[in-house]
């Protein structure tokens, strides 16, 4: 069976102006993520994992090279089109959750749907379903401050799933959690994978990385299979 590609980076370079000198972080990166894959990126701190994730997640633009989402060259899009495209196709889960503190769990999950203009009732029904799916059906109206770390991350995962994205990125999603909670969250990711979602998770923990079917690393500023 022909594998369908979701994200493809082609000869991607990324460098930053660090004061006076140019700091090259990524160099000649070529990666393709296929539909239904669970990919982990494992590399030491400061090696450019987040940078790579942000480029794949359409949050940041490469200095040089091309980025394709489902075959579409996204770098030709205008900023606002790109934002809308990102909202529809990409889900993010962060180490520090990044929930909106004033909104309830339910509203946090509805937020991505509000942003791309899903009707209110539809958004509410879907958000409830998602929170039930991550095991938080009984915490709909709790604000983040009233939730534990693991619960916050579950809300974040439900939020990432809100617009039924083509791909979900996790940047150290278990980095702020204790071992047991981390296990639960990883179990949830595996569950999502079994249900057919495409996942890319960044970690510096090899144990976590090994849960994925495909492991990438960054060596000499470029991405290689492990």
């Amino acid at each position, binding site marked *: 069976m022909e594998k369908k590609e979701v994200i493809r980076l082609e000869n991607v370079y990324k460098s930053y102006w660090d004061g006076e000198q140019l700091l090259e972080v990524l160099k000649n990166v070529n990666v393709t993520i296929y539909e239904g894959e669970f990919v982990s990126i494992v590399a030491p701190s400061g090696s450019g994992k987040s940078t790579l994730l*942000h480029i794949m997640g359409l949050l*940041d633009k490469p200095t040089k090279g091309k980025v394709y989402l489902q075959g579409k060259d996204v770098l030709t899009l205008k900023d*606002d089109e790109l934002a809308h495209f990102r*909202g529809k196709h990409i889900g993010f889960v962060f180490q520090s959750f990044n929930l909106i503190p004033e909104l309830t769990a339910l*509203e946090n999950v509805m937020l991505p749907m509000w*942003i*791309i203009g899903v009707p209110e009732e539809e958004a509410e029904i879907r958000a409830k379903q998602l929170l039930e799916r991550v095991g938080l059906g009984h915490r709909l109206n709790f604000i983040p401050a009233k939730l534990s770390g693991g619960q916050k991350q579950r809300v974040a995962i439900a939020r990432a799933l809100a617009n039924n994205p083509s791909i979900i990125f996790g940047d150290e999603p278990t980095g702020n959690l204790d071992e047991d909670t981390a296990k639960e969250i990883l179990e949830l990711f595996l569950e999502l994978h079994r249900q057919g979602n495409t996942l890319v998770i960044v970690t510096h923990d090899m144990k976590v990385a090994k849960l994925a079917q495909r492991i990438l690393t960054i060596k000499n500023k470029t991405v290689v299979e492990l």
Partner: protein
Amino acid sequence: MIVLVVKRILSHKLRTILNILSVLIGAGFLLFVLGLSNGIEEKFISTLNKLSSNIVIVVPLKINNVLFLQREIRTGVAMELFKENLLNKIKLLPGIKAVSPTIQLTLKVNNKSYQVTGIETKLAPQIILSNIELERGRIYRSKKEVILGPIVAEDLDVKVGDSINIEGKTVKVVGILKRAGTSLLNSDNVIFGDYDFVKSFGHLPPKRIAAIVAISENASLAAQEILKLLDRAYGITKEDDRWYSVITSESISKQLSQMLFIVKAFFIAISLVSVLVSLIVISNNAYMNVADKYREIATLKVLGMRNKDVILLTIAEALVLSLTGLILAIVFVLIGASFMSLLKITISDIVIITLFTIIGTVLASYFPARHAAKIEPAEALRYE
């Protein structure tokens, strides 16, 4: 999305309250000033116009400022006086219905000082009653009778039929006028009596008159005719050389409006300073919100929010605060207006101030909003 705006606003209670308060004060003050100047305009100028629109007064004084009118007539700083025969010439002008010499003196009445105005007895019904109605009694018919303005009557505590003492002479009160407010004859505050009777207390040279009062259907036209007549009679060619003035309620309200306009402009300028301060508070508040919610805004952008929506969100937050302040300001000023008759708020004032608030708030929050839109999510979320 409204949920987000409201909840974000409520998350900074003190800041929100201060912002609302500043708009409340700025907009409230401006509305108060507008309302006050409306009230003053209505009270003084429109009643003046309504009440004495057919009266023309000719005085041998150069009057540059209506505020000093009363004082100048009273103190009699006139250098020259009109001759009696001027009356006949004015009588012959087109459109003039009645002409009387007039004089106003400050006299002791029952040992208090009052303005006493003399108008010829046979012309008194026409001149006085064409403008002001009698509350009770009738107009004076002889030198022994007077009528009182309502404030004088109340002040002296006299009724129709009572006698009063004017500088040692006893006269009978035969009528009391209705309250008229501001008018050219200042009728509420004066005593009207026969011209010769009042003149007898002054020191006019023979065959001279201090002032003339005329009645005409078209007072401004009559005023022009009289002025022309005077210019010809005294050989005056330049306006500056005139030592006399012809006053109508229209000429006074014109001058009053001009003065009121200057006063109004001055007060509006002051209240604009407070409006400016409110705008700075709004802008600063929006900047603080952006700085505080740096990560949140980055998150919204991660979730697909477009730059223009980030701008709208920031402006919407500022607008909710401003409009809350504005509504409170309108409510307070309207409550004030129900107690203070001089405060007159019109729909157009409210519309103007609402537009002003909306435009001001959008401008004040636009730059912070653009600042928010420029946040780079990748950059903002790098520091976990």
